[in-house]
């Protein structure tokens, strides 16, 4: 079983002319967990990953896998599996031959392409030309390329983009299983909600600089907790809650109470003898913190 090594970014910087696409990024991605690399489109995620993989030359700083730069790895595809956003396929080549090209270049066994296609559920389409693949199938083929050498480190750029709900569930389980085996898994996304159920750690960048890193739960920095509650006699419910000193606003499907715990609101209603038809704690903190970190314009 290949084990993961940490991915280390140290002062990584890329200037395109006067514009800094990535500035002084330093962080470490640990093995054994899934790390989400988040930021709005254009934040510099792809450039960072391309520098990590030796495809783009950094202006300064470095990135390595357990201390070794990608270009210096002895057997790159067996150490790091990467899938980048661009659909890098010759449309006239079959999926099996596409993978065989790179398996041969890396000196992998002849069985590697079929094994990788099997893992991503494309075994039945191995001889079909890639030009006829759907977006979801291309994503899976990109993942098959990443898995080709059974690597201890996975670097995936927007792997969930273009997958159907079933595919999203499948990749979620796959990535979690890979991390549980001790591999290092780094996935990028521009949507927190897309990876929220998959990642343990988050690294968030905006305009090429690191704005937050830590466990997913540390992202929930907002103090505002809200409770959504509903009853048949909604006006009286709102009156009671307001009477207890809460700020209340009306929603289409109930009443929204700021700075409240569901238990307290439930007790208030119980004491007043109002039967509730709905009561839930709102957890909007993650997404809101994310949007605050990356700036509102990034949400678009």
């Amino acid at each position: 079983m290949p084990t993961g090594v940490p991915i280390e970014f140290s002062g990584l910087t890329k200037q395109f002319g006067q514009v800094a696409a990535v500035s002084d990024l330093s962080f470490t991605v640990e093995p054994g967990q899934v790390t989400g690399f988040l930021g709005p489109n254009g934040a510099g995620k792809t450039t960072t990953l391309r520098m990590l993989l030796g495809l783009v030359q950094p202006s300064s700083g470095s990135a390595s896998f357990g201390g070794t730069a990608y270009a210096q790895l002895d057997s790159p595809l067996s150490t790091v599996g990467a899938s980048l956003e661009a659909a890098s396929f010759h449309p006239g080549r079959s999926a099996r031959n596409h993978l065989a090209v790179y398996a041969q270049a890396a000196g992998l066994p002849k069985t590697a392409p079929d094994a990788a296609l099997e893992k991503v559920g494309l075994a039945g389409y191995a001889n079909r030309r890639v030009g006829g693949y759907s977006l979801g199938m291309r994503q899976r083929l990109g993942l098959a390329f990443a898995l080709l050498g059974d690597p201890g480190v996975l670097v995936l750029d927007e792997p969930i983009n273009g997958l159907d709900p079933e595919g999203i569930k499948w990749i979620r389980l796959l990535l979690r299983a890979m991390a549980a085996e001790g591999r290092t898994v780094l996935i990028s996304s521009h949507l927190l909600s897309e990876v929220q159920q998959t990642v343990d750690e988050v690294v968030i960048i905006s305009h090429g600089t690191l704005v937050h890193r830590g466990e997913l739960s540390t992202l929930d920095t907002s103090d505002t907790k809200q409770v959504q509650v509903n009853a048949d006699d909604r006006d009286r419910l709102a009156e009671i809650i307001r009477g207890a000193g809460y700020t209340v606003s009306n929603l289409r499907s109930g009443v929204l109470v700021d700075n409240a715990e569901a238990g307290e609101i439930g007790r208030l209603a119980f004491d007043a003898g109002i039967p509730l038809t709905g009561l839930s704690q709102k957890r909007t903190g993650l997404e809101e913190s994310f949007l605050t970190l990356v700036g509102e314009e990034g949400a678009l």
Partner: protein
Amino acid sequence: MSLVHAVRSETTKITSTRLWWVLALIMVGYVGICAGGLGAIFGGLGTNTNGPVLPDAQIPLLIYGFATSVGYVFPVLFGALAVTSEFRFQSLTPTFLATPRRGVVLAAKLITLFLAGAGFGVLALLASMGAGAAVLAGFGIDPLLSDPATWAFVGRSLLAMALWAAIGVGLGTLVPSQVAAIVIVLAFTQFVEPLLRLGSGITDWSAQIGQFLPGSASDALVGSSIYTAMSGGGGVALEWWQGGLVLAAIAAVATLIGFATSWRRDVS
């Protein structure tokens, strides 16, 4: 070790799409028709009482020479497309991920396409010698198939086709845009160079320069072609090995400049 792997990978790349046999099919048809057609013309002239333009002994190689004199554009295109398609389909990303040492990839491409060019040469010679020899034999002209000079010509033709494919690789790295590379290949080989060769023959000093044009160098290497026959055989020409060196130098210089520019650029 990694060069061997890379050559294997490049070989799979060029054999796993339809391009090679589409180009080869057109080449074989084109070369075969030219060789068969001209064979018929010379055969007809030979039996005509007005007298032959050329001695019988020169005719076979002139006709077999269509393999390179009209066929050379196909290995050039094949070599150029092998490089430009990597840029066009962004497949340099997985290529450089599998083989991070970019020089190794380019060296493997040169080796692979050099061999593929020789393979195109085999097919082109099969077409020109097959059609040519059949037609000549039909007119009672000795096709010279057992002459050692013919087989030396075959060897030099294979080398020429291999070098042309390597020049294509160089061109592809110099001009990564696929459309631009195709336009340059076709415009230069079909229009610009023939005119330059014709024009350079007018004065002695320009003929000295003209012999270094890639097409002239290729004809010098092969030793017989319709162009040299048309200029009456009196024009200046390089020795066969000099012609080979000129082609190899063009391939090397183009590839080195391409490596230093487009090949080492950021891949995004």
